[in-house]
C-alpha cells in the first residue's frame, strides 16, 4: 500500500491511497496476476454511512468487510491504514484473544469506531495512537486545518516516532508505504523512493487531486497487488475511488 497526505499552497489537504493486498496468496499464471486482488476488485464499493438522514462518514470498502481501511469524516478528518510487519504480530494478539486476554482492539474495528465516533482530528489521533491493538499497523491521518497530517506507526502497544507535516521545514506531504519511516525500505520493495521522487518533481505549487493520481499511477507505486486508488478532499467532503489494473511489464508488488 501507499498512502499520502499533501497540503497545497492554499492549505487544502489531499489524502490518497493505493490499496495493495494479497501477496503470496496465489498467482494466476494465465492472467499473470495475483488471485486475491482479482477476487477483491469486484467487491470494492464506496459507502456513505448515514445516521438521522445525514452522512456520518464515507469509506471505500470491500463488500462483506465491516471494518475500515480507507475513510473520511467530511470536513473533519481522513484516515487510511497500511499493513505493518513485525515479529510481535497479529498471531500473538489472536493467541492472547483466544486465551481470554481481550484488552486489545482488532485493527479494522478501531478504524471503524474512530470514523464513526471521533469528533476531531485530535481525538482521532489520540485514539489511533493510544488504543492497544492485536496487530501492528500504520495509520495515516489527515485533518481539516493546515499542518494537520500524521503517520502513526503502531506496535501492538505503542506509538513509535510519530511523523507530522511541517510546512515551515518544507515537509508539505507525508507518505507511507509498508516500512517504518525512520528506516530504509527493503530494496526489493522500495515504493517509497519512486513515490517521493514524483511528489518532489510535482512540487507543492502543482499538487492537486490530479497530480496525486499521477503519482499513484506510476509503477511500482502502481503494481500487481493494487486493487483500488482512493482520492479524498476533506474540505470538500469528496471521496472518489477507482479500480486499478497494472498492465505488463509490472512489478508483482
Amino acid at each position, binding site marked *: 500500500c501507499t498512502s499520502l497526505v499533501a497540503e497545497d499552497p492554499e492549505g487544502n489537504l489531499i489524502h490518497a491511497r493505493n490499496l495493495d493486498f494479497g501477496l503470496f496468496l496465489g498467482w494466476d499464471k494465465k492472467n499473470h496476476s495475483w488471485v486475491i486482488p482479482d477476487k477483491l476488485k*469486484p467487491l470494492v*464499493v464506496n459507502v456513505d454511512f448515514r445516521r438521522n438522514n445525514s452522512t456520518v462518514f464515507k469509506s471505500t470498502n470491500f463488500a*462483506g468487510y465491516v471494518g475500515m481501511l480507507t475513510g473520511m469524516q467530511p470536513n473533519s478528518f481522513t484516515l487510511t491504514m497500511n499493513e505493518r510487519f513485525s515479529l510481535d504480530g497479529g*498471531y500473538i494478539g489472536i493467541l492472547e484473544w483466544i486465551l481470554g486476554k481481550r484488552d486489545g482492539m482488532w485493527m479494522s474495528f478501531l478504524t471503524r469506531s474512530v470514523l464513526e465516533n471521533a469528533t476531531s482530528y485530535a481525538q482521532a489521533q489520540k485514539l489511533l495512537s493510544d488504543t492497544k491493538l492485536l*496487530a501492528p499497523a500504520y495509520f495515516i491521518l489527515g485533518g481539516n486545518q493546515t499542518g494537520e497530517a500524521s503517520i502513526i506507526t503502531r506496535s501492538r502497544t505503542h506509538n513509535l516516532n510519530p511523523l507530522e507535516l511541517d510546512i515551515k521545514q518544507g515537509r508539505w506531504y507525508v507518505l507511507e508505504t509498508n516500512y517504518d519511516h525512520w528506516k530504509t525500505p527493503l530494496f526489493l520493495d522500495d515504493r517509497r523512493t*519512486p513515490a517521493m521522487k514524483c511528489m518532489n518533481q510535482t512540487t507543492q505549487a502543482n499538487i492537486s487531486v490530479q497530480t496525486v493520481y499521477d*503519482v499513484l499511477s*506510476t509503477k511500482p507505486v502502481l503494481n500487481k497487488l493494487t486493487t483500488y486508488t482512493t482520492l479524498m478532499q476533506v474540505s470538500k467532503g469528496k471521496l472518489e475511488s477507482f479500480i486499478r489494473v*497494472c498492465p505488463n511489464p509490472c512489478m508483482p508488488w
Partner: protein
Amino acid sequence: QYVPPYTEDCRTGMYPPSGPTFGGAVTWYTVNLDLPPSKRWTELITDKKNDLIIMVQAIKDLADALVPSGRLEELIDQALPLMIDTLPYPFNEEMKGIATASGVPLGEVILFNIFYEVFTV
C-alpha cells in the same frame, strides 16, 4: 529502485482515469446506521453476494492448499463462529447479518473480517 520497464518515469495526465491502468468506477451504497446492525449491510450484500462467495472460495482454496486434509477449513467453519460474541458489538451483529444475507457460513465471514491479524501469521 530503478529497474525499467518495471519502474517508470513519473506519469502525468492520468486523471480523469482512463486507459489500461483504469479497471472501472466504484459503485456508491448507503449504510443506514439507524437500522439494527444485522440489517445494515443487506442491500449492499444482496448486490455483491456472488462476488463475496467467489472471494471466500479463493480463501478456502488457499486454506486447502495449506492443509490438504481440509481440517483448516473445518476449523474455520466450526471454531470461528464460537468467537463471534467475543467480538465487539455492533460488528459481531453486522457480520451475522452479512452471513445471513449472503449465505456464506459465519465462520468464513469472520475470517474475512479478521484477515488482517490472521495474515500476519
